[in-house]
């Protein structure tokens, strides 16, 4: 099994240290923003995969459904996100194989992910992601986040990376219980627009996903309208000739 192979590889690498630990991320996704609304969870993420400061990949799906009841969004190293999806795939497979009417809900998946992330952190080989896990089961809405060091919590609205600084103030002001779908989308788009203007790793191609009791829907990619016609942008160097 893949898990025992990697253990052996790690043991061998203790002799040639560091060749098998995550030291820094290579291809990364930026913020994910999510909130609870009347019928479930809404989540937004752009489709960018940055390679350092290069905006290299522009069609990366950073949100995926997990089982029947959950939706996972990730920022950070994209290959680690893909690895997590494989773990979750196996988890859901075994859950389905019981075939007994019980199923893992978003709370269970969130806690499983927390255990995985924390255990990897303890081995100094983290999965370099911040995850957002949302879902609905039996009418109960659930929204939580896990970081690469295993910090985890639930809330009515969460964001990763730059979203913490730019989106959460907006969410704190404008979120309320029982948002309609349209209002929820409006708030998310407002957050994503601010991120697009101010986050250098954001790209203008995003998806919004919703999860309700009925299931997951991830929208087709689309872009936000932006406005650049501010007078300050005309002749920007007028006060400092020679600069750029």
């Amino acid at each position, binding site marked *: 099994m893949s898990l025992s192979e990697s253990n052996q590889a790690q043991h061998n690498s203790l002799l040639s240290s560091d060749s098998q630990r995550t030291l820094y991320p290579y291809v990364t996704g930026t913020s994910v923003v999510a909130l609870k609304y009347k019928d479930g969870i809404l989540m937004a993420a752009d489709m960018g995969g940055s390679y350092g400061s290069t905006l290299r990949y522009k069609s990366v799906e950073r949100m995926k459904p997990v089982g029947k009841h959950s939706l996972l969004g990730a920022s950070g190293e994209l290959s680690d996100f893909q690895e997590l999806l494989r773990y979750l795939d196996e988890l859901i497979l075994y859950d389905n194989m019981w075939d*007994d009417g019980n199923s893992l809900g978003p709370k*269970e998946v969130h*806690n499983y992910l927390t255990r995985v992330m924390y255990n990897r952190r303890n081995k100094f080989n983290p999965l370099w992601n911040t995850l957002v896990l949302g879902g609905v089961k039996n009418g109960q809405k659930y929204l939580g986040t896990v970081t690469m060091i295993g910090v985890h919590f639930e809330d009515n609205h969460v964001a990763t990376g730059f979203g913490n600084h730019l989106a959460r103030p907006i969410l704190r002001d404008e979120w309320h219980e029982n948002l309609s779908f349209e209002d929820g989308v409006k708030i998310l788009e407002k957050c994503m627009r601010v991120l697009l203007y101010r986050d250098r790793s954001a790209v203008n191609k995003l998806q919004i996903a919703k999860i309700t009791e009925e299931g997951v829907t991830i929208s087709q990619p689309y872009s936000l309208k932006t406005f650049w016609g501010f007078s300050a942008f005309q002749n920007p160097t007028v006060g400092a000739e020679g600069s750029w």
Partner: protein
Amino acid sequence: MFRNQYDTDVTTWSPAGRLFQVEYAMEAVKQGSAAIGLRSKTHVVLACVNKANSELSSHQKKIFKVDDHIGVAIAGLTADGRVLSRYMRSECINYNYTYESALPVGRLVVQLADKAQVCTQRSWKRPYGVGLLVGGLDESGAHLYYNCPSGNYFEYQAFAIGSRSQAAKTYLERRFGSFQESSREDLIKDALIATRETLQGEKLRSSICTIAVLGVGEPFHILDQDTVQQLIDAFEIVADEEPPAADPPTGEAEQGAASEEGAAADQGAAADQGAAADEGAAPMDI
């Protein structure tokens, strides 16, 4: 069952396709003191008869809490039962640690059954000599399972195992149709009556039986002796009487009144022992 040349090893089949060691293990269950379980849509009640080695000793613990939402009653080799209970507790707590939610009882029971099966297919092991009545909650409500030394498990509306369990089973078979919709109190009453059936005339007292309850919104717990004695007193129906119309059980008060009137006329090995309240009185009062 008689001894034969195929019964030494659990890994030896008989020509008739039987594993005698496994069947002997199930005999051990039949020799243990009775354990009874019943369930409704929302509750499970476990009851057992307490057997003590002598009047000087305490009785064996046969009902174990596995988690807030799962409990087990055992019959047979209680030492094996304790080991399996420890396994079940361990599984529940590990699941809770990883998923922060309760292990569905249906999955625990399958794991238990697979564990028992291993012992029927290794020459250096022996089957567990204990039968387990596992009551627990699931996404779909309350469940009662019986786990066999053979590695089989079955789901039941009501069941009894151990010595003289047939008497309890007969009672349960008559009444089980109403259990699914039963209230918690009626379920406990039926458990007590079924327990009394296994006593073959001996008077039902809270010192010789243990009752445990779990349900939706009610964590598994063992009822304390006083509560059980009060319930027995309230439900007291003289031995062998059967509510004639076999109606869904009505108020306890009605039953209590009926039994008081019936008491005088009825026989009872119990008659000499007097009211239940006297059971604490010392023999020298006679």
